[in-house]
């Protein structure tokens, strides 16, 4: 359980990049964290 990959979010920059892409292309956001993307992504 102490292994890095077993942590809830072991690669936060990777998660942030994914969520930014999905936020800018889909109507849903949040779940793992807050909704919204802090951008006016078109």
């Amino acid at each position, binding site marked *: *359980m*102490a*292994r*890095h*990959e*077993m942590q*809830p979010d072991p*690669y*936060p*920059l*990777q998660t*942030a*990049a994914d969520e*930014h*892409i*999905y936020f800018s*292309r*889909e*109507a*849903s*956001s*949040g*779940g*793992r*964290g*807050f*909704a*919204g993307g*802090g*951008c*006016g992504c*078109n």
Partner: protein
Amino acid sequence: MQLNNKKRRAGQVRESIASLSAALLAATITPLASSAAAQDYSNSDNYNRDTFGPGIAYSELDSALLVYKEGDGRVKAIEPSTDLSVHGPAGQEISLGLVFDSVSGATPNGAVPSDLPQTFVTPIKAQGSTATVTSASGGSTIIHLPPSPGDLAAAALGRQYIVPANALPMDRGFHDHRWAINFGWSQPMGGIYDVGLGGGYSIEQDYRAISVNTRLAQNFNSSNTTLSLALNAELDSSFPYGGVPAPLTEMNPQWKSPTSRGKTQMGFVLGLTEVVARHWLMQLNYSFDWQSGYQNDPYRILSVVDPASGEPLSYLYENRPRERKTQSVFWENKFDFGPTVTDLSLRYFRDDWGITSKTAEIAERINLSHSIYVEPSARWYQQSAANFFDYYLVQGQPLPTYATSDTRLGKFTSLTYGVKVGFKPTGRTEFYIRGNYYRQTGDGHPSNAIGQLQQQNLFAGSKAAYVLIGYTWDFH
């Protein structure tokens, strides 16, 4: 996003970010050195990664570069980001993150395709000129001249772009830069396992977001259960190029008033993290979010079509409700099977615009050795349409209060496939590269399409390939 080219400004932004990040990282690393001296030991797990167990001060530096490209000449983006976290021996943590985005390419404007060429028009600023005046002593001065009457007359006509027959209408003048900074602080306090504060600031050429958040987490059940509550507040400002268009008015080249509109967003995430068994970690979140204010895409239009032929007759700016409430339930499970780790997550989302969505995601990390792993992944996503979504409006029918043709608010399914390869040259460093392919599919040929629209693909969904290259470094 602004529709004009500002490369010079982008260069200044990049230089500013580089200077700022260097200064901030230096300021944050300094106190780390003194705390690390007191606690300079660590352990490695079976997979050659330092565990930095409890009571050890250390820092993590994460950096990543995202390169994103959509098909058909659409959006391209390059996004470097970096994150520095400093961990104290008593569970304290401070973090600082920086992100920079450069985005360009073509983006659908919301109009339907036609079997005839279509002309669209957007505002453009009248540009002045410069003149060099040389003095008797040989020195020279550059004088900026205001726009001439000819410049003003040309600008009044706006920027026109023509879309060929049977092509998806896209504006190819899309160009934007964004940079964002975020920070966080957390530590145990007063018997509470974790108390945190954070914030963020994001700025692009036509949008700004400021957010603050706070978090409380408490452990129970011999630290096998963690309950957490996180609150978030965000204040956004949209200041589109050309001003804020009046909803459902005809597309035109005039500069509009007001020039900006705001949006407030508040939300919370209630979380439960449970060590279900020795090799099974589970996380369950409920999220609620409320948004109030300007939610329109100021550049997005809808076609108004002839009721018989389906030919576009005019184009109206879209309009969305000012309020939106969203809820989601997110459930993630991680299973440690020794050389492999399975990460399975599900999400259900709904809002009061009529959108519901389901998401399922799986990643399988396979440790090939102590220093190399591969991780294939897949994601399935499906959403229903907002109740004010339509591909187009019909001439002669009553104008609805709200209307958008933004495919992102329509019904579609998306699939993402990816594979990641990681390499750990030491127990404290890791390089990884991940490639993904993303594709949306939707109904581009609705049965009620009118006239020539029956021959067109009305779904403007995107497909994209992107690569993320990352580096992590844990150090004392």
